């Protein structure tokens, strides 16, 4: 009677674990790039992204001015460049967050990101 089953209980356990993993993997999609953060985390992230690029731009402009003695033009130019870079980063971050799961698997995930 026991011929049909694998005789080794460990092999059976391994099979079951593999199957459960596959199911879990399919359920979550590949989970790639999707952010598990809540809305607060996303807001935090975007705000930081915007400010940081601006800060970097300003720092570069200020530094260039000091080195080249072109005050205040470097600061002004790099302020705008930093602002644009910040928006670009925000756009990229938002795209990454919005990518989410592929269509057809979206049920029960709307509340997460």
């Amino acid at each position, binding site marked *: 009677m026991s011929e049909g089953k694998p005789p080794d209980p*460990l092999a059976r356990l391994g099979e079951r674990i593999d199957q459960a993993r596959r199911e879990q993997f399919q359920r979550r999609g*590949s*989970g*790639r*790039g999707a*952010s*598990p*953060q809540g809305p607060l*985390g996303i807001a*935090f*992230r975007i705000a*930081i*992204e915007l400010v*940081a*690029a601006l*800060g*970097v*731009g300003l720092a*570069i402009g200020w530094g260039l001015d000091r080195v080249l003695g072109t005050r205040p033009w470097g600061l002004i130019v*790099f302020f705008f*460049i*930093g602002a*644009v*870079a*910040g928006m*670009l*980063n925000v756009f990229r971050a938002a795209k990454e967050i919005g990518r989410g799961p592929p269509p057809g698997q979206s049920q029960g995930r709307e509340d997460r990101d």
Partner: protein
Amino acid sequence: MPLHIGGIDISYTNAALMMTIVVVLIAGLLLIATRRARLVPGRLQSVAELAYEFADRMVDDNLGEEGRPFFPFVFSLFMFLLLGNVIALIPFSFSFTAQIVITATLALFVFALVTVVAFVRHGLHFFSFFFPTGAPLIMAPLIVPIEIVSYLARPVTLAIRLFANMMAGHTMMAVIGGFAVALGYFFFLPVLANVALYALELIVAVLQAYVFAILTVLYLRDAIHLH
């Protein structure tokens, strides 16, 4: 414990102490957990395996086979930040991840690693990263500085995100804890709020360690496959 050698301040600070503790804890946890490794894992071994497989999947999903060499780095980074963040929640301990010096150092290290990897793998071709394919050449003077700034902003965001999240959580708890003294008979209200906040902080602590690690992995992916 102030310590000056050769004009450089290498004092042994609270942060250094906590980092030492965290490293010892991680090493101890993993060594003890795997010393008597069994096929059916016990409690401690489960913890170690869970963390290991989690980081493993993170690297595997995003980098594939090419990501193997980076796994030890990502795993240690993840464990270091995870334990650092969680340990900071124990009263009277010290949260080194809420010090911008430390998060900035880590972020700069990641940034340097990513840049070096990109250079090694692509050589001078790396600079094409700053100019999207298909854009008209006239736009180059505008696009290149923008892309460079947005690339340089990465370590800054990486550092500030971890620092700000930890800092904000701890400050919020301290402020609300302060209300307890001021409110007299109603002291239990802020205390209850703090209990709820504590749970939130635990989530944030784990999440931020994960976010730092996954962003490192994503940046590495960018470095390996330009565009």
